[in-house]
């Protein structure tokens, strides 16, 4: 059955909530127009029923405000969030209230703790402030005041949700009202300056994203439809709202900890033209020919993603030797062996390799994006590993780049230095895995590994990385409380709270900032609000060492006990016994959340093979 027909049938028969877990697959191949129609249907789903039947589906609240009628955003945004496996709860604010929505902490905009606040603006917000007839100076003055207003709103905004603004479009229908080109140029130049200033807001403020509407318009979406805009004040077309919603969907994935981390690419006809096993290194197309240049462009994009922290792997049905040889020695190849954290070439089915890759990198398979030109391989992976995002390219390599980039799989609010160093760290990790296999026991291995840990209060400079750890870490994340950078900065200013960061290293090099512990003083107790550790480094004694240090420090500051909890999610069941295994006593359970207590009578020492190089010094009454 056609996906949209199937969705409609489920809607008619009242089984949409039951089938909510099938929705991402049903939406995966839909056109933008069909996505909006699907979103219309999905926006009627009974959220309570979905919550009951699919408790593992994360809910995401989005608050929408802005200028004009914005209800048209609900359908496409619903579809985009559902496509990424989320249960959307989208609230559109009252007409024309964005200034009070954003400036008042008590506004309904903040109800229910939204993760994203969208403030959708167009040029109409500027032009309703100018007289008729207007001169260029009038328009520039109104524009300047609009940007000033937004600057003020952003500066005062104190919600914890990521605030999403957009640049203002300048359509020909406005420019054409000026008859001379010099005036048009003056307005156009002032307009770009204003947009540049808006874009800079997201550079200057954490937790603020400014979407570049010009980029979406350049992609071919029409800005507005005169009747919709004139009569209904719906100033943006469904196509543009669809493109906007797509971008917001990528952001939603990032802020809810569902960003992808691994790019696994097929080689023949995906990364280069031709089948290397047949035509040899001399015969594959990687440059200089029409198709070769298209593949070179794709390789360039893949290399660029890898340089920003995406873990790149090759999964190819080939013999390994010619593949490695081509990556090492082909004079015109853009991608090189060192761009990859792993190159697999053999004749096993690909989904087994993807599972293995995820296991070796200590990540879930749903962190993987897989690109292949072979419909059979794509279908097999979709079937065997539904969590993997499959990008199916075809025989036209010039389209590869767009297909890979259009879903912003790796979008993040901010990339840190840690991100850029990640591929190298994971490559080291695979070397460690080989090193591990040469030892009889884990203890012997750890004794040789020489793990060292720095465990200290976080600095403001580390807030971005700490936030990211809470967003990206799913397995060793005891309460899965996601924090944006602004939340972390707030904690650093909170006298009763303390954020400790974990940095580790070993004989193979530095791991960088790999974890964080969030503490809160509650009278005589210290509460561990959360404990997050990168999956790259757990099970090496680092977590025991840091937990012991938390207990030691709590006792040193006069606390009588330490409280902690485990809030189960689909991913973190592996750490359910972390606290009891380390001397904590279970003291209760509430809605699946287990509470633990340590009375500080018997404080364990850290792991014997882990060296704490700099212990945090307890200060004042804070933990």
């Amino acid at each position, binding site marked *: 059955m056609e996906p949209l027909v199937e969705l409609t049938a489920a809607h008619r028969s009242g089984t949409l909530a039951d089938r909510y877990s099938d929705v991402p697959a049903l939406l995966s191949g839909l056109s933008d127009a069909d996505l909006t129609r699907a979103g*219309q249907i999905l926006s009627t789903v009974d959220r309570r029923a979905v919550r009951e039947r699919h408790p593992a589906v994360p809910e995401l609240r989005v608050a929408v405000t802005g200028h004009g009628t914005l209800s048209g955003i609900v*359908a496409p945004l619903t579809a985009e969030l559902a496509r990424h496996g989320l249960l959307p709860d989208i609230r559109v604010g009252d007409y024309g209230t964005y200034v009070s929505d954003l400036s008042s902490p008590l506004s309904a905009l903040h109800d229910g703790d939204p993760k994203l606040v969208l403030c959708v603006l167009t040029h109409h917000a500027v032009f309703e402030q100018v007289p008729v007839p207007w001169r260029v100076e009038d328009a520039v003055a109104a524009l300047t005041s609009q940007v000033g207003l937004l600057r003020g709103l952003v500066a005062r905004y104190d919600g914890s949700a990521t605030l999403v603004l957009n640049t203002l479009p300048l359509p020909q229908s406005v420019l054409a009202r000026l008859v001379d080109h010099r005036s048009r140029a003056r307005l156009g130049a002032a307009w770009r300056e204003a947009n540049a200033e808006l874009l800079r807001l997201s550079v200057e403020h954490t937790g603020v994203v400014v979407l570049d509407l010009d980029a979406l318009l350049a992609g071919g979406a029409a800005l507005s439809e005169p*009747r*919709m805009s004139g009569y*209904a004040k719906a100033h943006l077309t469904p196509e543009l709202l669809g493109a906007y919603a797509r971008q917001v969907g990528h952001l939603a994935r990032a802020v809810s900890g569902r960003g992808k981390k691994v790019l696994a690419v097929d080689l023949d006809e995906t990364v280069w033209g031709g089948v290397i096993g047949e035509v040899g290194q001399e015969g594959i197309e990687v440059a200089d020919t029409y198709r070769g240049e298209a593949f070179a462009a794709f390789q360039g994009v893949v290399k660029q993603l890898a340089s920003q922290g995406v873990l790149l792997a090759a999964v190819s049905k080939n013999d390994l030797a010619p593949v490695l040889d081509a990556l090492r020695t082909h004079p015109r190849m853009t991608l090189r062996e060192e761009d990859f954290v792993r190159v697999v070439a053999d004749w096993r089915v690909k989904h087994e390799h993807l599972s293995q890759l995820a296991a070796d990198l200590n990540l879930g398979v749903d962190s993987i994006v897989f690109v292949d030109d072979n419909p059979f391989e794509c279908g097999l992976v979709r079937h065997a590993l539904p969590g993997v995002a499959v990008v199916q390219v075809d025989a036209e390599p010039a389209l590869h780049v767009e297909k890979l980039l259009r879903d912003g799989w790796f979008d993040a609010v901010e990339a840190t230095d840690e991100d850029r160093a990640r591929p190298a760290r994971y490559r080291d990790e695979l070397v460690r895995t080989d090193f591990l296999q040469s030892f009889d026991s884990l203890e012997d291995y750890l004794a040789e590994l020489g793990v060292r840990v720095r465990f200290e209060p976080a600095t403001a400079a580390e807030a971005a990385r700490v936030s990211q750890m809470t967003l990206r870490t799913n397995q060793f994340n005891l309460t899965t409380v996601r924090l944006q950078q602004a939340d972390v900065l707030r904690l650093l200013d909170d006298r009763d709270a303390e954020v400790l960061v974990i940095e580790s290293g070993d004989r193979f090099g530095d791991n960088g900032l790999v974890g964080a512990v969030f503490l809160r003083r509650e009278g005589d107790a210290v509460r561990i609000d959360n404990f997050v550790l990168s999956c790259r480094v757990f099970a090496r004694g680092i977590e025991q060492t840091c937990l012991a240090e938390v207990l030691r420090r709590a006792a040193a500051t006069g606390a009588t006990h330490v409280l902690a909890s485990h809030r189960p999610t689909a991913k973190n069941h592996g750490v359910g016994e972390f606290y009891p295994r380390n001397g904590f006593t279970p003291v209760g359970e509430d809605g699946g959340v287990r509470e633990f207590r340590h009375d500080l009578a018997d404080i364990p020492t850290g792991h014997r093979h882990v060296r704490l190089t700099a212990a945090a010094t307890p200060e004042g009454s804070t933990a």
Partner: protein
Amino acid sequence: MNTIDEFVALLHDEVGLPVSADDVETGLDQVPGWDSVHLLTLMMALERRTGRTIPMPELLEAPSLGHIYRLASA
């Protein structure tokens, strides 16, 4: 679009509105689940379906779904 049933099916499938043929002649404020938000979606769906431009000021002033149906099928 030739019948009121097709119109009701379109309301159901494209607007996500659970109406029956009985609701068509009641005032829009009495239609279960109706919200002015639905009007733009309905207009786009009707224009796509009929390939015709619907006079929007009249649509905005239409008192019932039946009125909208007649505008679209006129």
